[in-house]
């Protein structure tokens, strides 16, 4: 039995470590490449929006006044949903959205930090007092989806949820004012 010379032994260890580091480097490059690829080709990005709003007055006038909440289809056909997340409910409690079209969700809160996710989709964001949370998405299946608050906001947190009603083009008919409400089912 011949023993390795210490220098050979060290060289072998270094070779193994370099090989391992190369493998880890390839994995990291692959992961980052996939993230960049899906971002550029499929529009999958982390929601990012820095927009301030005064939480003390957001319900009094402007974008998040009561008559502006819910789903609105603009003259250019874009669909925007405005929601207030407050202890312990969403206003409105049911949100109508079209299937297969780009939808912009805009949320604000007058009280504490909330968060939303919509089941079966990648929609997931925090709603922080003082900021407008904005998410762009496209719903691919029609039906009712659950939208719970996913950030503990107080004793009524578990009761805080809304319904997202994804409608087909036949069902999604804006009124003269461009607004769409949930269908009674």
């Amino acid at each position, binding site marked *: *039995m011949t*023993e*390795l010379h210490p220098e050979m032994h060290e060289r*072998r*260890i270094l070779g*193994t470590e370099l090989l*391992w580091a190369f*493998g*880890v480097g390839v*994995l990291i490059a692959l*992961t980052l490449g*996939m993230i960049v690829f*899906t971002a550029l080709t*499929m*529009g*999958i*990005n*982390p*929601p*990012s929006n820095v927009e301030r709003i005064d939480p003390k007055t957001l319900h009094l006038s402007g974008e998040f006044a009561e008559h502006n909440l819910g789903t609105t289809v603009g003259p250019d056909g874009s669909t925007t949903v405005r929601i207030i997340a407050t202890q312990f409910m969403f206003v409105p409690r049911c949100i109508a959205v079209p299937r297969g079209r*780009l939808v912009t969700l805009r949320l604000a809160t007058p009280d504490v930090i909330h968060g939303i996710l919509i089941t*079966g*989709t*990648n*929609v*997931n964001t925090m709603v922080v007092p003082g900021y407008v949370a904005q*998410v*762009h*998405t*496209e*719903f*691919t299946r029609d039906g009712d989806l659950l939208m719970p608050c996913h950030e503990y906001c107080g004793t009524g947190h578990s009761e805080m949820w809304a319904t997202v009603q994804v409608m087909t083009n036949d069902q999604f008919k804006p009124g003269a004012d461009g607004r769409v409400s949930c269908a009674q089912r």
Partner: protein
Amino acid sequence: MHSDQPSAADDPAEVADDIDKAALARVMRTVPLGAAVLAGSMVALLVIGYLLIYLLIFIPRGTVG
């Protein structure tokens, strides 16, 4: 240490065996390979799990941004 207190070194079962240098060298020749296989397969499992979730759950859930 007081002499009336027993020491672990007094117990033959607690004292390390004499190490045969040749046997150690023989074992150390395969131990790094085993460690590499174990670490490599665990990382591979982790990456496969990540890819399955990314490709089968995250991507089909559609566009967001």
